[in-house]
């Protein structure tokens, strides 16, 4: 309905960039994904994610509470798939164990916080990050803050409706998508696994 | 440079009154073998409340 020319690209975009949805960017329908503000098919997005991860200097995964804690059936398996993917990429994992503003301060070397993700990104010189297992509301806030203040490239692997605040976002993503990403990464790296 | 509660291990009898008088969590640790308390000085805000409940005068702020 709304024509959007808004590009969800790596920042730093400025003091307080607008929310992408307000600029007309719409979330993808099932089976689709979103890339820099545009809907693409899921496979294209997955390939782009794999290539971003492989070419990154310091890719880091930010697993959130929904995957860090083994709280319901299926989480452990998904966590294992995530770990495999991280190993294939050679990415570090920095956890987001909860969403509180931590007093007096987080240790940006070992954790990330949705209220000020940039402390972790700048501290660790992260050029590509991947969000997974974070409740959508907190993920969107963090993704937008990152876009505003850093040049980090953001990827969101979402089990729900996806994130237009991320540069690439999958929706309805589960174990299969993580495994597929791992295959793509290994392929790009020349077939070397583990 | 910064103030904190300090335990005089000679005087401490491990009664743990200080532990339940401290407004800060996880400052005092009880060492069951030695029957002593230990202070985490990076968490202590040096209010001195513990010194007022210690029956053995084993705590000081310094």
């Amino acid at each position: 309905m709304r024509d959007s020319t808004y590009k969800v690209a790596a920042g730093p975009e400025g003091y307080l960039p607008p929310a992408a949805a307000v600029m007309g960017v719409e979330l993808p329908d099932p089976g689709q994904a979103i890339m820099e503000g545009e809907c693409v098919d899921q496979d294209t997005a997955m390939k782009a994610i794999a290539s971003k991860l492989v070419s990154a200097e310091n890719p880091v995964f930010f697993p959130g509470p929904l995957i860090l804690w083994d709280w319901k059936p299926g989480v452990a398996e998904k966590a294992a798939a995530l770990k495999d993917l991280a190993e294939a990429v050679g990415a570090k994992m920095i956890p987001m164990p909860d969403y509180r503003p931590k007093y007096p301060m987080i240790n940006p070397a070992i954790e990330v916080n949705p209220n000020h993700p940039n402390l972790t990104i700048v501290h660790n010189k992260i050029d590509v990050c991947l969000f997974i297992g974070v409740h959508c509301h907190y993920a969107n806030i963090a993704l937008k803050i990152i876009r505003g203040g850093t040049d980090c490239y953001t990827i969101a692997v979402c089990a729900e409706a996806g994130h237009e605040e991320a540069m690439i976002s999958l929706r309805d993503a589960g174990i299969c998508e993580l495994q597929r990403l791992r295959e793509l990464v290994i392929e790009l790296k020349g077939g070397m696994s583990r | 440079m910064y103030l904190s509660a300090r335990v005089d291990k000679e005087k401490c009898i491990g009664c743990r009154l200080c532990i339940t008088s401290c407004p800060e969590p996880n400052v005092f640790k009880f060492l069951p073998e030695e029957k002593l308390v230990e202070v985490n000085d990076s968490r202590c805000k040096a209010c001195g409340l513990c010194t007022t409940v210690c029956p053995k005068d084993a705590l000081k702020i310094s």
Partner: protein
Amino acid sequence: MKTGMLKISPGFEDIMPEEYRELVDNGPYGKNYGIGDLGSFKELLEEHPLCAGCGLALSLRLTLASLPMPEETVIVGSTGCSALAFPQVALHNIHSLFGNQNAVATGVKRALKLRFPDKEKDVVVIAGDGATADIGLDMVMQSWLRRENITTIMLDNEAYANTGGQESGMSMPGTVLNMAPTGKKFPKLSLPEIAHTSGCDYVAAVSPAKPKQLAKAVRRAILVARKIGPTYVQIFSPCPTNYKLNPKETVSVIRQREKDGLYQTKEFISEEAQAFLNTVEEKK
């Protein structure tokens, strides 16, 4: 609590910050700890921004250590100094607005009863005196009159401390604080008596000067709220900052007040609650 709630997903143990690993390995969930165990387990409360010597922080810490079932406890707070500490508490806790805590707690408790009919979920309100006795008094009392199964705990520092030290309904008469520049003109509200006549099955007025008594009151209040009806605990928690006390005097001023006959511990227990407590306390 789901059993996996505190289990770190396999393979992620080594990236979790120490604080969380400590909670998993040595936290109080499901362990039936009490204040006697403080100093030997990882507390629910983390480092918080309240003032040195804060009586409210002390009362909150003791209260959290006295929860009979922390793994099934949801806390509802309100605006005030305590709200500054709540984000650092390793429980689900809600801060909604100033004074509406008992109305929010009513909704939470009833929704959890619907969703988990076979489980006990303790909903505990922890709020200051301004929130409980002034701005929220109607909602506090109405939750008692409606006989909601919630525990209301007031951290009574006798002032609006977070907004810079104003007189509250719980301040002592004559107190000169902000907004009472010529001294408070009316007595300290007798909320324990009001709670009693409003139908609370368990009411106690305690202080951190007697930690064991405090712990017992909190525990009893929560157990009674679970099975019998509304309960209320008032914890006298002096504010060194706004009353310009030396931070180390927080406990000694309570003792002095008690000596002067201006503060006393209280406990009201309904017959039904007493009968229930007899059964659970005997068992233990």
